[in-house]
């Protein structure tokens, strides 16, 4: 054979291949988030993660689609905090925009709303920021939930945690919204079984502007533990008022708020010792990917990730990435892979049983010296739980 022509042929082939690789068609990934409306201040922690992931993947050469590397492109919309819009949008993404993959919206109601669409079109999607026992009623198949912060498990573990701290009396205040309501429902019988007396039981509607009346009752009851099943606005009220009144229960729990960056900025050392839900901490040495994620987020956004929502969002994209690497973009293959693989995430190994995460235990976090540490269960802890110190005087 003429060596020159072989070489030329090889060179040309190489150039063509290289050219093809450069022009690799992007993988289009669709989602909607509440960028405006009443949930808009909760979604940035998730949107930021999606953007961070896209940046990281594209910088590394693209998403690994069963061996082929292709860049990621987002097709995203604003559902305006309306679940009806989310349903429309996901239908549009699937049938109109014909995206290759889907990422989850934010929040439990939106996950439920979208689940029906996924089922209808047989399109798999990994959820993240949803937490309700009713998740188990969704037929397994096209949606999965990596969270372990499910209300009945939270109640169970809280009972164990309180018992282990020798708590005999507890004051419970709760906001009348789904997540906090659900936890309260499961919590009451758990506390009764554990022999813990509920000395204050106050529920309040969304939108309250003052908690003084409620917390005076709590203070007068002198409980060993205070559980404030609150969302960020009332969590802030709790912190301010509890500090004013000098509520000195050694165990104080605030449901939603402490994992969000603004909380630490607003309360500083006053927030130390507050316990909250969460199953991720950058300080867990057993999860080598945890700290790098934390650092990358801080570097890009100049603010800390939400220890719950951001961690879950990143887990969901890690799972997607690993699944696509194995199964490519075929929906049925993806579905089988997601349902049967154990994934390696920033939160350790994750494997699904039905729609739920079967490997990650339900945990609690505590703010210590401004850092979120895992303090329960003992075998997952990154730090030992501490007594809530007295509110700072000056």
């Amino acid at each position, binding site marked *: 054979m003429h060596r020159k022509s072989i070489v030329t042929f090889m060179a040309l082939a190489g150039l063509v291949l290289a050219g093809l690789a450069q022009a690799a068609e992007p993988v289009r990934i669709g989602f909607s988030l509440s960028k405006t409306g009443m949930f808009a201040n909760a979604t940035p922690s998730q949107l930021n993660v999606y953007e961070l992931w896209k940046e990281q993947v594209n910088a590394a050469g693209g998403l690994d689609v069963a061996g082929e590397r292709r860049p990621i492109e987002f097709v995203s919309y604003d559902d305006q905090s309306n679940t009806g819009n989310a349903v429309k949008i996901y239908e549009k993404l699937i049938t109109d925009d014909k995206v290759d993959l889907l990422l989850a919206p934010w929040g439990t109601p939106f996950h439920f709303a979208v689940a029906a669409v996924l089922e209808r079109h047989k399109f798999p999607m990994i959820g993240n920021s949803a937490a309700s026992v009713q998740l188990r009623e969704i037929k397994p198949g096209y949606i999965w939930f990596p969270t372990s912060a499910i209300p009945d498990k939270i109640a169970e573990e809280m009972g164990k945690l309180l018992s282990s701290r020798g708590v005999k009396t507890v004051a419970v205040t709760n906001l009348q919204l789904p997540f906090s309501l659900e936890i309260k429902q499961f919590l009451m019988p758990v506390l009764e079984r554990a022999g813990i007396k509920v000395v204050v039981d106050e529920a309040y509607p969304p939108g309250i502007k*003052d908690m003084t009346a409620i917390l005076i009752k709590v203070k007068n009851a002198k409980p060993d533990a205070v559980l404030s099943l609150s969302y960020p606005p009332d969590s802030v009220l709790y912190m301010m008022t509890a500090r004013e009144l000098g509520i000195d229960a050694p165990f104080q729990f605030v449901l939603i708020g402490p994992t969000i960056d603004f909380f630490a900025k607003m309360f500083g050392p006053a927030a130390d010792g507050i316990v909250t839900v969460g199953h991720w901490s950058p300080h867990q040495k057993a999860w080598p990917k945890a700290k790098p994620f934390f650092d990358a987020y801080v570097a890009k956004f100049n603010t800390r990730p939400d220890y719950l929502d951001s961690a879950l969002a990143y887990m969901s994209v890690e799972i997607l990435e690993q699944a696509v690497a194995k199964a490519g973009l075929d929906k049925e293959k993806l579905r089988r892979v997601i349902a049967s693989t154990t994934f390696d995430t920033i939160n350790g190994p994750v494997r699904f049983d039905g729609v739920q995460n079967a490997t990650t235990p339900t945990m609690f976090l505590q703010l210590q010296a401004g850092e979120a540490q895992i303090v329960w269960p003992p075998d997952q802890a990154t730090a030992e739980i501490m007594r809530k110190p007295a509110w700072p005087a000056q």
Partner: protein
Amino acid sequence: MDSLLSGQLLVATLVVGALYALVALGLNLIYGTMRLLNIAHGDLVMLGAYVSYWGFSLASVSPLVSMFVAMALSALLGMAIYVVLVRRALHSTALVARIEANSLLIFFGVSVILQNTAALLFTANPRAYAYLDQVIRIGDAAISANRLVVLVVALVVCVAAILYLRLSMTGLAIRALIQERDAARLAGIEPERIHLLSFALGFAMAALAGSLISMIQQVSPFMGFPFTIAAFVIIILGGLGNLMGSLIGGFLLAAIETYGVALTSASFRSILIYGVFIAVLVWRPQGLFGGARVAR
């Protein structure tokens, strides 16, 4: 029972009431003089809050200083909106006929613009800072220093505004315009100037409230709506155009929030507030202190 008499509940009522009253007063000025339903009022609170937040975070400027900047900026915005949008509406007979409905729409548009511009510029991430959060004891009550500041500033400004309206010539003119639009003209009062002033004042008071609120609550682009609602409920409850009525209405609502809850249960908080509102209006259709004549 003795918690009801505690100073703590009283202090809480005063803080919440003063803040409510401050926001309501600004709205009442605008509604009273021009019959404009400014449903963007809460968004001005939001803007004021952001001015103070950024002032503190970027330049360590105390909100007690940046509040003046917030007020000035907001007053300018108010005057701009008046000149560009409102004046046109007030001069067109077609628009004036349905001024309430049309103003609702105009300010709805303004509200949407303000909220989404803020979201675009600042992202929807909730923001907060710590300032003056030490706890001070007053008698048997304890209060965070920042909440005390909110109470004092809001109260002083409300009282000053009411006094100004009662005692100064301009204030008298404003009140004349509120009470009897056409007769005021006959008396030689120039509505243009008064309108501009009312707008500037109303907007400034909202921004001031925002600066104060930024010390005690997280700031985000869509935080304004609850304040708009509260302000409207209060000005209607107290009687439109009656500024003293707004002050009283603000404290009344706050009292329900604290004492109402203490007497019944926290779960009835909103039902009580709206229930009282509805009951008062059904009993007195012009609000507690509204004039017998309701100009349409």
